């Protein structure tokens, strides 16, 4: 296992979309172990996405079971080829990122999502999640599409009610 190097802005590679994983093999699982070690190495990261370490494959890890105030969660999740199939609600919350040191900002995310993915052996997974965990998933899946939270930051004065449904690729009017 190894701690991998995190790409940091303004690295152009963070904008590159990732490809779906096709082979659920030992190499994939070895990489996931390294990715997890890298996440744990970062200061308090609840999630990490493969492209943050320069691997452009659709893999994310999320674990929000250790927040200061407990939040609803599914524990430690490794999600391969994750896909959000349903969004609902929206709220503002503060985010930061291993790839954007020394900056946090407010981002609007869906409060409830439904998601399909594969586990590291290729088995199908399905989750319904809410709140902070749903936010973490949206943040990580954004990485797979080459989007960073700084592309979505809004002022706290932003009127939430003027915004409509959260959609893939941004809040659209």
């Amino acid at each position, binding site marked *: 296992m190894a701690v991998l190097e995190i790409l940091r802005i303004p690295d152009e590679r963070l904008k590159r979309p990732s490809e779906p994983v096709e082979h659920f093999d030992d190499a994939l699982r070895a990489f996931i172990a390294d990715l997890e070690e890298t996440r744990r190495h970062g200061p308090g990261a609840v999630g990490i996405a493969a492209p943050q370490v320069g691997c452009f494959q659709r893999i994310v890890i999320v674990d929000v079971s250790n927040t200061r*105030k407990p939040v609803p969660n599914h524990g430690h999740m490794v999600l391969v080829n994750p896909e959000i199939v349903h969004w609902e609600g929206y709220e503002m919350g503060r985010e930061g990122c291993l790839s954007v040191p020394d900056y946090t900002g407010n981002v609007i995310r869906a409060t409830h999502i439904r998601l399909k993915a594969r586990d590291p052996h290729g088995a199908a997974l399905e989750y319904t999640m809410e709140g902070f965990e749903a936010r973490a998933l949206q943040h990580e899946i954004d990485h797979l599409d080459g989007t960073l939270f700084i592309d979505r930051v809004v002022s706290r004065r932003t009127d939430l009610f003027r915004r409509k449904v959260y959609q893939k690729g941004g809040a659209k009017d």
Partner: protein
Amino acid sequence: MLTLVGEDRPGIVAGVTDALFRGGWNLGEASMIRLGGNFSVMMMVRGTGDVTEALRPAAQSMGLHMHVDEISGDLHQHMVPNIQVRVSGADRAGIVAQVTGALAEAGFNILELESDVAGSRERPVYIMNIQGVTETTLERVEQALDALGDVDVSVSSIETLIG
């Protein structure tokens, strides 16, 4: 620390920052906002020479008051807020003093405060949003703000997501 205030109009930020750029000044963190028809600029700048001189023509042509303070602050000194306080109520004198007084007593450090007067001229409503950092508990902050009968106060924790 550079402070500029004047009647709002398009082009203030462009005019000010262009003058700074031409004078060889480097910009750091900034906060700029329109307040009651005025535009206010607060900005960290770094450079050598007299920044007042560099800005005078632009400030004069746009009717901006200017104030310069030498500071020892630096970049990368961010603190991450962990508590948010939202206040709203019929406008009256003393809301901010009472809320922030209680917060200060509880050891709460305000990192950001923004407030607005909403409603109408006849029935103004004061709305304030504070983000800050404290080592005391959320419950303790709530208790500190309990006595403010006529305004609604909600205290919530901010969990910053790092991913």
